């Protein structure tokens, strides 16, 4: 193993959670030592447990830990890491971080700082797309001066020209942060301020711009890989239309309903933008699709995407492995080129459900807390990427994605069946998660028909109604459980509270619940009486 070629000897992973775990796994597979970094909130987190080395970089607040470029570069130098993989989020699309790595002589696993600048800044990317004739969503090409009250009138005027409703977006954005939909001119100044503040907190850059809302629309993106020679290939597209707060909840590959011609055209548009910006390594080109024929360029994410796994399942390519080889200066591999050849004619289907710590009955409000039960599905065609174990705490400081459940099957209907089956096996206790929403999606007729839109959640999901049914079942189950006086489970109401009983009523012998005072446990006496008189029960 020591003699086989590997991209690097030692890699630092500048991230946390499931993506840090996923990258550490790739490091181990490629024979590279891994270095984790962590904040005080993550001292016992899975990425720290799995890595070969771990370096503390600061307190829980992201601005004092995972966003500290100086600390992370220092940790890499101290541990002798030759490369840094940024994952997604945090510093992944910050040109300053890539530059700091380049200056320190450390390989940044991603595009060059200049390419990140050209593409990661969404405004610059819109200008690049315009230069190579790729149509974008109509909107501004320069940042909005949010800090100048005197400019407010002009901004509202410009937005009216673009046409309400408009979307306020963070130039440095990703994952929906800093994004706001604005329907009325009078709401625009407040939305710009809030979006800018959110963007500044999340990315350290509060620049925002305005874009027209395309509705109805599907969100379709293309996975790209590029090498140092300037070759860029597309590995396939993903449909990520099902979103809440402009953050994706369900993704699939390939995008259902596209013809081979449409697929070819979409991949070609994506390659054109990326090649113009001198893309190297992995990136994703995002488009809005009006459902008929037009693809509108949205932005390029110059990093590994959360949902890269569905493309891996369909293409058979390990994108993180490829990232490391490309970062080490290798040309695009034969594997990658072959996968690109097949990209327009996919022969299987994959779906990802993003399981997040959110309450789908309360507008997907965050639900950080301790996870008391954690059972993930398994079996054919299932992949789960997570950094969670039972007993772990989901900290309030970070992203609320806790697991990515991916299913892979021969075609889309089979993948949906597999999704439904795997969600049945999923058990998460202690915090509310988005699992009920995913169960709904797997059962939904419109989803099954490939009738996708970014309005899916707002149009079709009634979380409270679904919750009400479950609560009703929960009340009956808890009551029946109480009356059946169960000693099989741990932690009964009080010691010796009732007879043990299993399915079919076995295991009742030797119970001691018979002589409990009535007042202690209402009606449990009745159950004891039932147990005693079972054989004499009248038909």
């Amino acid at each position: 193993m020591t003699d086989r070629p590997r991209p690097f000897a030692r890699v630092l992973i500048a991230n946390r959670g499931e993506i840090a775990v996923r990258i550490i796994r790739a490091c181990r597979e490629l024979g590279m030592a891994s270095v984790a970094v962590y904040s005080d909130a993550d001292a016992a987190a899975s990425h720290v447990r799995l890595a070969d080395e771990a370096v503390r970089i600061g307190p829980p607040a992201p601005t004092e830990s995972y966003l500290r470029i100086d600390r992370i570069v220092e940790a890499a130098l101290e541990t002798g890491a030759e490369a840094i993989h940024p994952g997604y989020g945090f510093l992944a699309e910050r040109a300053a971080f890539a530059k700091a790595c380049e200056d320190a002589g450390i390989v940044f696993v991603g595009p060059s700082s200049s390419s990140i600048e050209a593409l990661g800044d969404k405004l610059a990317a819109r200008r690049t797309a315009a230069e190579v004739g790729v149509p974008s969503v109509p909107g501004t090409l320069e940042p909005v001066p949010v800090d100048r009250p005197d400019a407010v009138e002009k901004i509202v005027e410009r937005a009216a020209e673009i046409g309400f409703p408009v979307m306020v977006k963070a130039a440095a954005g990703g994952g929906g942060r800093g994004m706001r939909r604005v329907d009325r001119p009078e709401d625009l100044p407040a939305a710009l301020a809030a979006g800018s503040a959110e963007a500044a907190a999340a990315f350290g850059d509060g620049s925002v711009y305005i874009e027209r809302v395309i509705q109805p629309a599907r969100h379709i993106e293309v996975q790209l890989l590029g090498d140092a020679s300037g070759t860029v290939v597309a590995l396939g597209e993903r449909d990520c239309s099902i979103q809440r707060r402009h953050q994706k909840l369900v993704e699939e590959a390939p995008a259902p309903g596209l013809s081979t011609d449409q697929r070819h055209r979409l991949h070609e548009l994506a390659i054109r933008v990326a090649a113009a910006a001198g893309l190297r390594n992995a990136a994703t080109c995002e488009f809005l699709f009006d459902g008929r024929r037009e693809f509108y360029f949205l932005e390029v994410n110059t990093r590994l995407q959360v949902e890269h796994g569905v493309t891996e399942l369909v293409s058979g390519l390990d994108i993180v492995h490829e990232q490391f080889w490309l970062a080490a200066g290798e040309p695009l591999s034969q594997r990658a080129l072959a996968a690109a050849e097949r990209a327009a004619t996919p022969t299987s289907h994959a779906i990802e459900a993003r399981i997040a710590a959110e309450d789908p009955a309360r507008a997907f409000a965050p639900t950080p807390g301790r996870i008391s039960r954690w059972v993930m599905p398994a079996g054919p065609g299932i992949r789960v990427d997570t950094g969670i174990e039972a007993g772990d705490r989901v900290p309030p400081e970070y992203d609320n994605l806790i697991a990515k459940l991916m299913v892979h099957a021969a075609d889309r209907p089979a993948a949906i069946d597999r999704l439904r089956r795997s969600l049945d096996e999923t058990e998460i206790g202690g915090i509310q998660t988005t699992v009920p929403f995913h169960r709904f999606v797997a059962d939904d007729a419109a989803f099954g028909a490939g009738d996708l839109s970014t309005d899916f959640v707002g149009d079709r999901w009634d979380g409270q109604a679904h919750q009400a049914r479950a609560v009703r079942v929960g009340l009956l189950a808890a009551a029946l459980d109480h009356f059946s006086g169960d000693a099989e489970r741990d932690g009964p109401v009080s010691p010796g509270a009732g007879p043990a009983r299993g399915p079919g009523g076995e295991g009742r012998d030797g119970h001691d619940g018979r002589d409990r005072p009535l007042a202690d446990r209402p009606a449990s006496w009745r159950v004891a009486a039932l147990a005693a008189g079972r054989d004499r029960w009248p038909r």
Partner: protein
Amino acid sequence: MAQVIPSGRGLRVRPGRRSQVAGVDPIVAAPPDPPGSIDDPVRGPSGSGLLVDGTLEDVRLERRGPDRAQLRWAEDPGPAARVVFIGGPVLGPDGVTRQEVLVDGWRVEVELEDERRAALRERARRAAEAVGHGGPTEVRSVFPGRVVSVAVATGDPVVAGQPLLVIEAMKMQNELRSPREGRVAQVEVGPGTKVDVGDLLLAIE
């Protein structure tokens, strides 16, 4: 077949605070009376039928190991509801037993309490409410996070739906709006305040 619940033998079963949702009211549950009103020759009377608010529901809890079960209605041929009991029921110092149940991915908090005791408590609560009639509406945080900004001050008139403050949680800025029309009676937090679930933020009177 309807039965009158014998006084004091029932349990008040209600959703816990986080599981309260429109359309689900607390129930009074009791075993069938006489015992075994619904007889299952295979499974015996255990878990067969439940008196819900005095009406017999032919519903059965089938155990699947120590913490899993399936809830099945006799008249419903469809698949049973799968439930997972998360931890055991916990009897609190307030006399209320709490149980977390997982149903279709929903985390359901259930509170069980002696029916008579629940009735006493309710009466006491109503009396307290009558005393404080027309009192202020408390706005409490529904998730842990940090207050970013407060848009109102004590004494400000507000209308229902008016933005009150912004709380940041998990990097998202969440705007809290006024639940009713009135006047701000007190403001308990300011920019930077860390808040937990249930913390008092401000009150509207």
